[in-house]
């Protein structure tokens, strides 16, 4: 039992417990926060596998951006879902089916050696996860990589065009117009003769 193993078990336990919290807790905000912890522990596990690039990207993209947006939306909606408990039992069969499929996929991909996998070879000191990834991603898998990029772009365009409202419906302000404003557009200097004082007598 090395220190690495202890660290791995800590991260693994954190991931499993927080994943359970995600689906069992009532409050959606807490659930999202638990999901953040899950991602964080998985990033730790990946780091132990010396996949530091993937691990940091997971932190940066999922924890730093995606989950922040999730939290943003959940907080904005202030959704206090009381009916999530009924959903738990209702979707349980579906969840079990998914888990079974995933386990089957793992067994098929690992074959018969599922219980006795060889220990991963520790990479050398000059091993760079970034270089390794870049070398295959931009040569061998350049085509699928580009297709995935275009797919994401199409999804972004679709999402924006669905949510886009014409300028008439929006209440946004034209900042260019605001910046171009001169004093003459807003203030009018009026010359007028001094008024006569009321004669009170």
């Amino acid at each position, binding site marked *: 039992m090395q220190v690495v193993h202890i660290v791995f078990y800590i991260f693994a336990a954190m991931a499993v417990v927080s994943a359970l919290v995600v689906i069992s807790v009532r409050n959606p905000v807490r659930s999202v926060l638990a999901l953040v912890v899950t991602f964080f522990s998985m990033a730790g596990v990946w780091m132990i596998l010396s996949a530091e690039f993937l691990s*940091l990207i997971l932190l940066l993209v999922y924890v730093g951006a995606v989950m922040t947006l999730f*939290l943003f939306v959940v*907080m904005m909606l202030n959704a206090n879902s009381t009916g999530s408990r009924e959903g738990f039992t209702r979707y349980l069969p579906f969840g079990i089916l998914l888990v079974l499929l995933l386990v089957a996929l793992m067994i098929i991909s690992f074959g018969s050696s599922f219980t006795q996998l060889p220990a991963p070879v520790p990479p050398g000191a000059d091993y760079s996860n970034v270089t390794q990834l870049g070398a295959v991603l931009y040569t061998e898998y350049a085509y699928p990589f580009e297709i995935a990029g275009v797919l994401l772009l199409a999804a972004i365009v679709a999402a924006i065009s669905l949510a886009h409202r014409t300028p008439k419906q929006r209440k946004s302000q034209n900042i260019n117009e605001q910046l171009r404003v001169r004093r003459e557009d807003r203030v009018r200097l009026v010359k007028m003769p001094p008024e006569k004082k009321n004669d009170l007598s």
Partner: protein
Amino acid sequence: MASLITLIWLLVKIVALVLALVVLVIYLTYLERKVIGYMQSRIGPNRVGPRGLFQPFADMLKLLTKELIFPTASNRYLFLVAPMISFGTALAGWAIVPFDKGMVFANLNAGVLYSLAVSSLGVYGILVAGWASNSKYALFGALRAAAQSISYEIAMGFALIGVMMAANSLNFQTVIEAQSGGIWHWYWLPLFPLFIIYWISGVAETNRTPFDVAEGESELVAGFHVEYSGVMFALFYFAEYANMILISTLITVLFLGGWLSPFQGIPYLEQVFAGVPGFIWLGLKLSFFVYCYLWFRATFPRFRYDQIMRLGWKVFIPLTLVWIVVVALAVQFHLPPWFK
């Protein structure tokens, strides 16, 4: 046994860094009050000690002895955890900062990414604090902080991509060494737009004026930390100032040659200043950016929220995208003297 000694030695170094950081931060608050004071024709704190030099200690004692108040119907556990997240992420960023040649806690290969990831984690402290307080002002502050940090992180990330391409590395040590050769070889010149964008995004990322809508004292009282008192407020305060110093250090490392001497390659001056250790240069360079934070605060009015969003999405991101293409071309065609 040998590993135990290295572990203890590492812990000693970490404690030394944290203590140094605490002293720096509390004197930064003093400096801020003095600088802004003089800029507004006031004297600033001058009662405790000579020229008010012990004022930060008095402030710290006051904050440490104050009562901790938990608002009713607040989320107690998360309310307590939020300042810890802020404090922890503010410290974690220092793990990869190179203070001198070989003087770094973790010489990570993907150091640039690590710095970006940690700074993006920092927003959780604010978000959790705002939500757990169960107060509308705090919640508004938290939501603004989240939206702002997501927008400016993208521009920041693109600016970093430019640096990575120019240095051909994600390691801070390599990034600094790629800039060696005097002041004209530092990346602020070939990557000038990225330098400015990273700087401004850094100010936005730390929620300082003119991007301090998350605190916005004139509209949101104190934003996300309205409900905090005593030590927990002090932790948020510490995190904010430690992040300011961290961002200043990162700007220095990425665009101003980190611990490199500015007199490199100048015949006479290079020999005269050869004995100055690298961390002195780093300190001098980063203190300029720290000073600018205070200067901005005394100078600029707060941005309106929609203007912040416009600047981030419609100005910075397109600009960085264009300049990344320029950098790619420069690297490809080995534009002298920067890219060999």
